[in-house]
């Protein structure tokens, strides 16, 4: 906090301080790496040398992981024609321009029911999943913290109105409410985000309000009123920082459940529509092929698990660091 009192440091020094900070908190850094890596890969997906995620090649249906196939040539539309064998006799008639010799193509995670490259689908699919998982999360936290603060700090009628609305929201099970919203609005990325936000905001408001209630009765809040601070200032400068640990924990938990939520929507066909990839549609595809090619479902499940674990660890670590008591002892 000393930085609040001292003038701004030059950028180089700040970078060095960040580096020291990361070295001093190895667990935090370790949990950050997979998250940042996934975000970066999702961002630069169009620049990566991967095939079109929607390009079907029925001849490589359910190709096992770590196998190879051959690009024999291109068809009339200029798309690659891929075949599991390099035998020229198998050349489909659609091939217009032959490659001689055929180009080798690696399928690290194999191919799905339509012979689409799973790596490519996972990468393109992570854009949708991360977008919703992160942006819905930010929206949920902003909305719920705001209303939680209002309800908990101001109390009285404001509290009454907000909490009755929350009760109405909580009367529906979260997933049911989300499905209801998706059914009414129709499946799309934005509607998925809306469904996730609306179905999880009520519970979050209740969490934050509860925490605000315990903080608002603290002596330092009374002391702040005695110092002549106004309500808005006390809410955001005195109460909010003390609710921060809970906000971080809840955000980490939300991130995990939102990935699962969005994947779930797509899995049951209420989310993204085929052939567009996200982790849910890949899973739903893999679920159908569980006996023929179990590897298809592995990719998204492993990624979701890694993210879930990393976000939880990250939440715990940040919470520890933010607590002045723990960070200084």
């Amino acid at each position: 906090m000393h930085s609040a009192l001292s003038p701004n440091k030059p950028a180089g020094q700040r970078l060095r301080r960040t580096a020291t900070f990361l070295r001093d908190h190895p667990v935090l850094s370790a949990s950050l790496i997979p998250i940042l890596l996934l975000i970066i890969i999702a961002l630069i997906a169009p620049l990566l040398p991967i095939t079109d995620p929607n390009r079907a090649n029925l001849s490589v249906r359910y190709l096992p992981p770590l196998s190879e196939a051959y690009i024999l040539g291109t068809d009339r539309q200029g798309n690659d024609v891929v075949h599991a064998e390099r035998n020229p006799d198998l050349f489909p008639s659609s091939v217009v321009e032959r490659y001689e010799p055929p180009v080798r193509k690696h399928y690290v995670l194999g191919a799905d029911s339509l012979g689409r490259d799973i790596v490519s689908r996972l990468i393109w699919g992570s854009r949708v999943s991360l977008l919703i998982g992160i942006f819905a999360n930010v929206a949920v936290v902003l909305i719920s913290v705001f209303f939680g603060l209002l309800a908990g700090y101001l109390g009285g009628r404001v509290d009454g109105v907000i909490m009755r609305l929350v009760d109405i929201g909580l009367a529906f099970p979260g997933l049911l409410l989300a499905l209801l919203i998706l059914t009414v609005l129709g499946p799309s990325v934005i509607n998925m985000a809306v469904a996730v936000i609306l179905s999880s905001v009520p519970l979050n408001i209740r969490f934050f309000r509860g925490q605000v209630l315990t903080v608002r009765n603290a002596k330092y809040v009374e002391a702040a009123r005695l110092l002549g601070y106004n309500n808005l200032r006390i809410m955001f400068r005195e109460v909010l920082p003390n609710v921060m640990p809970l906000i971080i924990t809840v955000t980490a938990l939300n991130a995990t459940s939102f990935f699962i939520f969005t994947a779930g929507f797509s899995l049951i066909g209420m989310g993204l529509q085929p052939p567009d990839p996200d982790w849910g549609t890949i899973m739903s595809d893999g679920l159908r092929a569980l006996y023929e090619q179990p590897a298809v479902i592995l990719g998204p499940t492993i990624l979701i698990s890694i993210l879930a674990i990393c976000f939880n660890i990250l939440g715990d670590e940040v919470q520890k660091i933010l607590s002045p008591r723990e960070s200084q002892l």
Partner: protein
Amino acid sequence: MSVTATTEPVLAVKDLHTHFFTKTATVRAVNGVSFSIYPGEIVGLVGESGCGKSVTAMSILGLVDTPGRVVNGTITFDGRDMRRMSGGQLRRVRGHEIAMIFQNPIGALNPVFSVGRQLVEAIRTHQRVGRREAYQQAVGLLERVGIPDPEQRLPQYPHQFSGGMAQRVVIAMALANRPKLLIADEPTTALDVTIQAQIIDLLAELNQEFGMAVLHITHNMALVAESCARTIVMYGGKIAESGETPAVFDDPKHPYTQALLASVPDLDQPDQAIDPLEGFPPDITREWPGCEFEPRCSQRFERCPVENPQLREVDVGHAVRCHLYEAAT
């Protein structure tokens, strides 16, 4: 400092009634309290728990929370009617012209911000100064309240301070804007005896130096005897007795004051049995037809349960609310 008729009181409370309206009963926490505090004066407000001392203080600052409400009376501070002030005007008075400190100094500081930041904010809320100047002022204030190495201590967090040191910080925050009146609500109750003495001495020094009036709320008779020029004894939401401290202590008029003083162990006569006050504080949820102290009073007579005594001056500046002295005047 003795009371002179020519100076205007810095605070004049007249016939203050603060009641709490619960579903089952009306709690008359403060029920007709009048007193004045003159510039530069230290006034002790004593009484047992629940007699309305703290509610009186909160009423002065306009910080009585629902279901409580100031139902009657006038509070004139520095010639202005506090009860007619808007929220904004009240906030400009709080922490600026009237400051307050209380028990549990560590709880009065926000645990997530450094002490320096909290001091700087308290200063900048009421003064138009830059960060740097506020920081310089903070250093000076900590030095003044007797904290060694202020520059070292400012970036530290409240949990790194001992109770006595934290109370000094809180006093520094209260002094930051040179208030005309400091309300100290049991400022030493949570501290051990040697620290108590230091804090009381500090308050006395600051009272001399800045000429601010102090309203010292406590249940510790010894502290009042030592440091306050005038003493007000409260019982059951009303003033039982008030006067110059030597008069009240050497010649207590009200049976309650007498009983309070008798229940304090006397160091000069350690073998003498102390005489505790029997019974419980009055039930202030009902309006008493007679004197609230009557059930516990050793000198009660026929008039006491039926007629409510009025506060009467029995000597110059020495007032008592008891039927025993009505004939005398």
